[in-house]
């Protein structure tokens, strides 16, 4: 590790996750190039960018869906390469996708343990330990401060914000050290988005390193510790919170000059 540690409590040596000069091509198209940033335990790294900026490609590399063509991904300071989502998951990198991977018609507790159901008994009597699953779901959600009236209600009856929160709680329960959130607030109203950001902060406070992908600087700035701004697959810079304001983030994302141009165009009809 060569980069100087960020000032206060993070005196720990290697960051949880580090990207060094990562790039990815789809055929002739350079989807991502020269991306460098860090994710530390108990911090939120925000990845900002407009549509097509390369956010999804970055997620897919971290989640093990794609391999990087250039550069290095380091976990605890050790270079890693994930061939499949399962490998990333086993390494403690959990991804909560925009569509959540939850089944609307199924009960919350069934969703919570989907694919990782606890069992009891053996042989032909091996069965889904429903009592344990229900109880654990209730407890884990309560620990995140999520108040669910009844874990038996279908996920479909939850609001969008509640569903994001359940998905985050699930990832934390299953031992995620790095939590990647893909546009968790994009489809939500202001209030709901606030709820989700609160749970992002909860996960952070429990020592999880969070990667928050968003195109909304208003959501990113309050909760983020570090900001990576992407534009057309390239990094416009990786900033610590102290070094950048919300307005600067907004300008960077829109490509500064382009936004000024747009403002100029929109003003004209007054004449």
């Amino acid at each position: 590790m060569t980069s100087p540690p960020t000032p206060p409590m993070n005196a720990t040596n290697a960051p949880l996750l580090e990207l060094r000069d990562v790039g990815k091509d789809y055929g002739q198209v350079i989807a991502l190039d020269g991306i460098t940033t860090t994710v530390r335990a108990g911090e939120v790294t925000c990845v900002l960018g407009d549509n097509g900026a390369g956010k999804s490609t970055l997620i897919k590399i971290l989640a093990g869906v794609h391999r990087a063509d250039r550069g290095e991904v380091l976990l605890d300071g050790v270079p890693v390469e994930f061939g499949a989502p399962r490998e990333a998951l086993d390494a403690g990198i959990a991804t909560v996708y925009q569509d959540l991977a939850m089944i609307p018609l199924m009960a919350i507790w069934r969703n919570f343990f989907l694919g990782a159901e606890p069992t009891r008994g053996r042989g032909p009597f091996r069965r889904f330990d429903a009592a344990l699953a229900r109880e654990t779901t209730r407890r884990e959600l309560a620990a995140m401060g999520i108040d669910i009236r009844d874990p038996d209600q279908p996920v479909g009856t939850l609001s969008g914000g509640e569903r994001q929160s359940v998905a985050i709680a699930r990832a934390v329960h299953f031992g995620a050290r790095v939590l990647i959130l893909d546009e968790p607030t994009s489809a939500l109203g202001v209030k709901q988005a606030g709820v989700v950001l609160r749970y992002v902060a909860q996960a952070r406070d429990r020592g999880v390193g969070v990667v928050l992908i968003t195109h909304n600087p208003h959501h990113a700035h309050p909760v983020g510790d570090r900001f990576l701004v992407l534009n057309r697959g390239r990094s416009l810079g990786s900033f610590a919170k102290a070094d950048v304001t919300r307005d600067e983030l907004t300008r960077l994302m829109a490509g500064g000059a382009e936004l000024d141009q747009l403002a100029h165009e929109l003003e004209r009809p007054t004449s």
Partner: protein
Amino acid sequence: MKPELGALIGAVVVFAFFAVQSPVFRSMRGIANWMDPASTLGIMAVAVALLMIGGHFDLSAGVMTGTTALTVGIVAVQFRQNLWVAIAVALLVALAVGFVNGWLVTRTGLPSFIITLGTFLMLQGLNLGLTKLFTDTVTVGGIDDVPGYAAAEWVFASRLRIAGTEFRIAILWWVLITALATWVLLRTRFGNWVFATGGDEVAARNVGVPARRTTIALFMTTATAAWFVGTTLAVRLTSVQANTGIGQELTYIVAAVIGGCLLTGGFGSAVGASLGALIFGMTQLGIPYLGWDADWFYFFLGAMLLLAVLANRLVRRYAEAARR
């Protein structure tokens, strides 16, 4: 939000309707009579319901009862094998067909409706063609002359005496299979995967559910149920027509839908499908008991189906409203 609630209400209403007007219908003998068609249908409906919850249809399920019954007959009679050997061969045939259905559906991503329509037609042709080839007729008979018949009859076609009335043993199997399917659905990992695969296959795969294996297992389950019912028919009737089971596939789906299964998958229950089969059996025998023309049966069934689909639509709306 219990899937079988509507079917339960329906079953009570249908029972009351016929029982009030027909003393035969409400007698023990009457009950034993209308439970019989409900039982073989119910065994299939439960398996088809599992498959529908898993998000698929099996149009070959009906003709497969014929395929397995004919296999039992041909292997036992034409190839002079012990009946149990024939029954085992029929099981292997069923499992193979179920596997092919599931494998094709998961490999190609095509709708199971069209894949199993293909296997349905192929099996229909094979049933006729092979039966003619081996017997020169369209019937396989003499199954009761084969060694092993007594034991097979005891398992598949005996009668149980309850309160002075004889009930066919298929009714017992039906109840046990419904209970087993309910347990599997609600209390095993596999059951959880079935709901998830039918609810949203991509999402299920994202969290590590083996959706493909689950789907193939479900197709093999309907095939196994078809084997069980086919064997029951072969042993009970001792002769099998080459067109056995054709047209039944839709009846199974109707029973499952009346029982609360969504056509879109992800929701339903085994008990509901059994109640759907019960409504079917009660109506089928209740209408002649009242002295009505049997044609009314289909009208009544269609009306039940429409009612059930309308009720199920509310469930889907409920889920989709909150979807975002």
